[in-house]
């Protein structure tokens, strides 16, 4: 039976109209991913309405293609410009941009897209083999765990991006968490820090903050530096790239699995998947100090991690009809629109859909890889363009990107304000990434902490009686304590003693 379903799905792929649809939609997805301001969620939502009259198979194929494409496309602008195209690729920028600065932009993109592809494939295996098991795991995450996971995300991001002084990373993260509290609160719609301003009441939108924090400083920097250095692009051989991937295959698999786990937890998406795998890669690496300096493994981990979330986020859709991330939520709506009913009855009523979706995802990932290699041949040349010519163009795109999210000019002002904030952060050596993650995870931390306290009637006890919750508390404590001078000193003593 299963082989029959798979063959059917493959046959559908070979229908010319379907094949062309996949090609176009993955390409569209990659473009959307590359442009800061246009997100995967937006692209899928846009397409959902457009595909209503199209045959369900073709429509689903195009939606899956856009999803995979847009999550992967973000890495190109992150690596080449240090401006993540989607929030998901912020972790990629940490090492990716340094790699590009060395003139190895092509290799960086090759590594990123190949590990994206592998991450997606790993997640597809998890969909086929582990859907029931992983669903049970996802249900173990309650409000207590969500709060701690959000906190953990900000803490590790602060730790990872700040070099030697984690405190700066955490300060930046807490500022981000604060920004996220502006506007109507998520539980009772009570306006906070809005000063009766109707725009502030709507909250601070994520995308303008991201574009401001990452894009603006790059634009300004291009005009501040004295030396006009134009990078040479070192050509690379694909075999060389494959060798690096082969060397880091453990990282790919580990990141893939972490990505899947993050993906299935409802409400947590691609952005945190990238950071967690990056953290895991750095912790397990022998050369920790090279992370952040253009380490290939950093890019590989981040990209495999964020793309594995794609499959991960689809798992709870299939088993519970509950999306694991924001783009997946739109995808679920699209499934409904086409009369498909994923959920607890799916394996009984329409078992072929699972295999069809997996084949489509694989095809999408494959197409993404091929198209990315072709596109990157052109995009790497961005590095050769004089920054003072390129950056004004990028600046226009940033402004438009901030505007199109809600079509409101207030978001453009926000972009400028956070651009100036980002500039100061960069000058004072505070990393911007924890700030961004704070804004992303702020609402999750806030509503879940308060919901947890509503559930426990104000008691903190459940935080210390639930296993996953204890696990996170211990991890967070270890991370924070390890940065104290006292502990650092103790560690040195111990090492000395051991010698």
């Amino acid at each position: 039976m299963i082989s029959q379903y798979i063959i059917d799905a493959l046959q559908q792929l070979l229908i010319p109209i379907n094949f062309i649809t996949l090609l176009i939609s993955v390409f569209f997805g990659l473009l959307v991913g590359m442009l800061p301001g246009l997100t995967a969620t937006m692209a899928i939502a846009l397409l959902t309405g457009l595909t209503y009259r199209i045959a369900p198979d073709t429509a689903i194929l195009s939606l899956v293609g856009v999803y995979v494409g847009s999550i992967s496309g973000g890495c190109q602008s992150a690596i080449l410009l240090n401006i993540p195209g989607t929030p998901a690729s912020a972790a990629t920028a940490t090492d990716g941009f340094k790699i590009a600065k060395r003139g190895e932009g092509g290799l960086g993109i090759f590594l990123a897209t190949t590990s994206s592809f592998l991450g997606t494939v790993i997640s597809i295996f998890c969909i086929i083999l582990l859907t029931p098991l992983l669903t049970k795991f996802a249900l173990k995450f309650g409000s207590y765990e969500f709060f701690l996971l959000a906190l953990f995300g900000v803490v590790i991001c602060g730790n990872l991006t700040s070099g030697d002084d984690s405190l700066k990373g955490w300060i930046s993260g807490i500022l981000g968490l604060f920004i996220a509290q502006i506007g109507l609160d998520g539980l009772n719609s009570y306006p906070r820090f809005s000063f009766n301003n109707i725009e502030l009441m709507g909250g601070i939108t994520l995308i303008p903050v991201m574009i401001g924090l990452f894009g603006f400083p790059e634009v300004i920097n291009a005009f501040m530096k004295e030396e006009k250095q134009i990078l040479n692009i070192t050509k690379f051989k694909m075999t060389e790239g494959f060798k690096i991937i082969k060397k880091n295959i453990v990282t790919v698999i580990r990141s893939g699995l972490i990505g899947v786990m993050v993906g299935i937890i409802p409400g947590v998406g691609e952005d945190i998947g990238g950071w967690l795998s990056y953290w895991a890669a750095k912790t397990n690496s022998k050369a920790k100090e090279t992370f952040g300096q253009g380490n290939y493994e950093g890019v590989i981990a981040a990209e495999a991690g964020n793309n594995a979330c794609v499959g991960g986020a689809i798992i709870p859709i299939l088993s519970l009809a509950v999306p694991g991330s924001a783009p997946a939520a739109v995808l679920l709506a699209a499934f409904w629109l086409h009369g498909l009913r994923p959920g607890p009855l799916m394996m009984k009523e329409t078992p072929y859909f699972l295999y069809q979706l997996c084949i489509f995802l694989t095809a999408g990932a494959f197409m993404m890889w091929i198209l990315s290699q072709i596109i990157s041949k052109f995009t790497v040349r961005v590095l050769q363009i004089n920054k003072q010519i390129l950056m004004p163009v990028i600046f226009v795109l940033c402004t438009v990107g901030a505007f199109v999210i809600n079509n409101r000019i207030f978001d453009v002002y926000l972009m400028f304000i956070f651009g100036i904030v980002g500039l100061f952060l960069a000058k004072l050596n505070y990393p911007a990434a924890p700030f961004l993650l704070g804004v992303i995870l702020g609402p999750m931390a806030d509503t879940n902490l308060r919901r947890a306290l509503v559930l426990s009637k104000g008691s903190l006890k459940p935080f210390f009686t639930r296993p996953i919750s204890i696990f996170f508390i211990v991890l967070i404590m270890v991370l924070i304590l390890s940065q104290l001078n006292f502990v650092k000193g103790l560690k040195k003593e111990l090492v000395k003693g051991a010698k």
Partner: protein
Amino acid sequence: MKRVIILGLCLILVLGLAVGCSQKPTASVEPEKKSDKEEAKAEVDWPTKDIKIIVPWNPGGGTDLTTRTIADEMSKALDATIMVVNTPGASGSIGTQEVLNSPHDGYTIAANGMMPFVSYSVMGYLKNTYRDWHVWLATFSPNVIAVNKDSQYKDMKTLVDAFKNGEVSVGTAGPGTGGHIGIEVVRSSLDFDYNHVPYGGGNPAIVAALSGEVDVTPQLSMEMIDMLRSGDLKGLAALTEGPLQISEEIAIPSLADVIPEAAKAVPMGESFGIAVPKDTPKEVVDKIDEAFKKAIESEAVKKFAEEKGVVVLGYSGDKAQKFLDKLASVVCWTLYDAGNAKISPEKFDIPRAE
């Protein structure tokens, strides 16, 4: 050479953006261009061009799915193309306003869930009320009081006893949403307290009931129909007048039958329908009415209702208005009492429900 590359790149990027930007506006341009001739023609011959139904929510939601099913059938009955356009924003009021701004000629029709629709006036989103519309009600999705399959509450009686002890936590999509209003109505008729745990939407609230984080969820039948069918969730009572048959084996008893004291709480839930402004020409309204009735009786709508666990209403005219009167009293006052609505329902002559 480099210049060409730069230009080419920018072009690609800008084109991509243009695609992104141009989607929403295109939908709203069409109906404005109308000549007087067409207006006159409408009285005898309607429709002579494409009809647009504005769904003020994202595709795939309850309003969208219902509307698309109805629209397909209505377009057959009218022998005209009906486009369904999604214009989400500000709780659906932006799309509704767009219908008011378009000519009132029946070529632009509003679709909505009736809970938000009747609350726009008290929420301060729109100046007019539901009384300024001709409304057709298609389907009704009742609130279902559901628990986890392993829950200690095996029937509604034990649950009500636990409610009276004040020990039960209830997960909803948030204050003022369908689930919250549903449980509030039950609460006010039985007089108990509960621990209200708001989630960011219906889905997370249902998952919370599934994982046992909350004891009960009172969301809509439509939102958890498959969970109820597979037995992962158990529906203790539906806020319907009769039992709610969701599959051949499973029927959820009516709250009025299991707890007679709570009889006045039913029916409660979300209903979906379409509407045109009141001053639309009568001939056009009659034609829409005819097409709507044909659509309601169609196989497609029946199948949709069966699949989604909703009840087909098919109300129009005074019957629909009466239905909305009752709904508005409950919804508007619940929102006002909870502090969500800033304007008193009294201002719009919406009396408190008895």
